[in-house]
């Protein structure tokens, strides 16, 4: 896998750094070059809290190449509390059933292992259930 590409995305992967549009205040993740809400440039960094809830999910038994070691795993659309949806794996479920609306929070985990000659491990965001307490 391509080293520069993973390096370029490190702030998104490790810290959910997106953008806030300076023109219309929309919170954007993933970052965009142009704000989809007002059509102006959006380049102001914004770090998302990492809290959200499950919008939808699916349990995958067959994994694509690079993800075999994770299988079976759960892919979700997570609705961040600031608004955007994000595609990510759920983790630390420990047999807990997943439900739409379930509160989750971001953690950093290994998301992919490339078994190719470079043997790069890719780390990034996953989401785990929020265990207890008020949000």
């Amino acid at each position: 896998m391509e080293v520069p590409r993973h390096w370029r995305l490190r702030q998104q992967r490790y810290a959910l750094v997106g953008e806030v549009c300076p023109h219309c205040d929309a919170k954007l993740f993933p970052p965009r070059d142009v704000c989809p809400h007002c059509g102006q440039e959006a380049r102001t960094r914004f770090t998302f809290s990492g809290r959200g809830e499950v919008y939808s999910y699916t349990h995958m038994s067959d994994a694509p190449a690079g993800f075999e070691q994770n299988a079976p795993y759960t892919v979700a659309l997570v609705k961040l509390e600031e608004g955007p949806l994000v595609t990510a794996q759920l983790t630390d479920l420990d047999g807990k059933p997943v439900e739409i609306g379930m509160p989750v929070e971001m953690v950093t985990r290994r998301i992919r292992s490339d078994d190719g000659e470079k043997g790069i491990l890719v780390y990034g965001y996953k989401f785990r259930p929020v265990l207890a307490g008020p949000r």
Partner: protein
Amino acid sequence: MSDVVIAGVSQTPVGEHWDWSLRNLAAQAVQAGRRDAGGLMPQVVYIANVLASTVSHQANLGSLVASNAGLAGVEGVTVEAAGASGGAAARMAFLAVSSGIVDVAMVLGVEKFTDQAYAEAETALAQTMDADYESMQGATPTSQAALLMQRYLHDYNVQHDCFAGFPLNAHANAAHNPNAFFRKPISRQVYEQAETVNEPFNIFDAAPYADGAAALILTRSDIVPKDVGHGLVRITGSSIVTDTLALHDRTDPLAFQAAGFSIERACSQAGILPQDADLFELDDAFSIYAALSLEAAGFARGGEAWRLAEQGQIALGGSVPISTMGGSKGRGNPVGATGVYQLVEAALQLRGEAGKNQIPGARRALVQSLGGPASTAVTHVLEKLI
């Protein structure tokens, strides 16, 4: 602007063609398409293909296909828009002929899926998603569809088996299509007891990927040889609309907005309403896509398309027949070529050549192909030329 007609069509059987390479499949469709069009020689060939550069390690299909299939020297380029590639290539040919710059254009859909093991080919398919933010998280096209289905079940408070009508209809129609991959009807019981692959999804909710090639020849009606020997079909509406590539970048992922807009634009060009069509060849790569496409086109309200399936309205004798030759579910899904198969099948319905699946008196067809979850939507309106 010139009128554009379909002068010829062709298709190879869809399936696992271990003996045929990409170029063999393409050549079969090219030659059969030209024969069906009374021998017309295209000046340009638009090739719809998604996987050749990864699965077959082959790019620049324009040159390869043209020189191997007796079209040496013609203009030829690949058109890629994921699962909507076939529709998009047809759109390019439509623009070329309607502009008056090109007299005869060929649309060739060709896909060779089985040159790699299934997992590798599916990884190649995942390239059609957002590489940085979807496939890097372990998502695949199938998981995208499963995410949509799960949310659909939740929002509309319905059970998974409400989708049964889509694969049942597709398989029933494929049984009479000699070019279909699966030619056996399935029962409701088989659907309900099938293995879950991507919860809530079972194996019958996803169309099987396969190899295939199909072609169309577009031209003006005055150029069609008088002895062509079959009816002609006019393209009266054509539209491509894009939406965000990633599902998560949408406010309402269940809306399939691009699919709806593309139907509206194509129908308004043709001066019809969607309900005026006698059949709707939609994209049923996943059963949830069939439902969302019917809803986006206005045939049902959100959460209710499955009722059309339950009531038999999507069957050959219903009010909005879909997947009339089996759709991707029954005919098989040769990815980039699928949109061309859909157009070929609709043209055969309008020519009265659909055999046991003929819709009596069919005069008008809507044909829609989707790239991803309607990240790209291509719609054509076809009308029988009388």
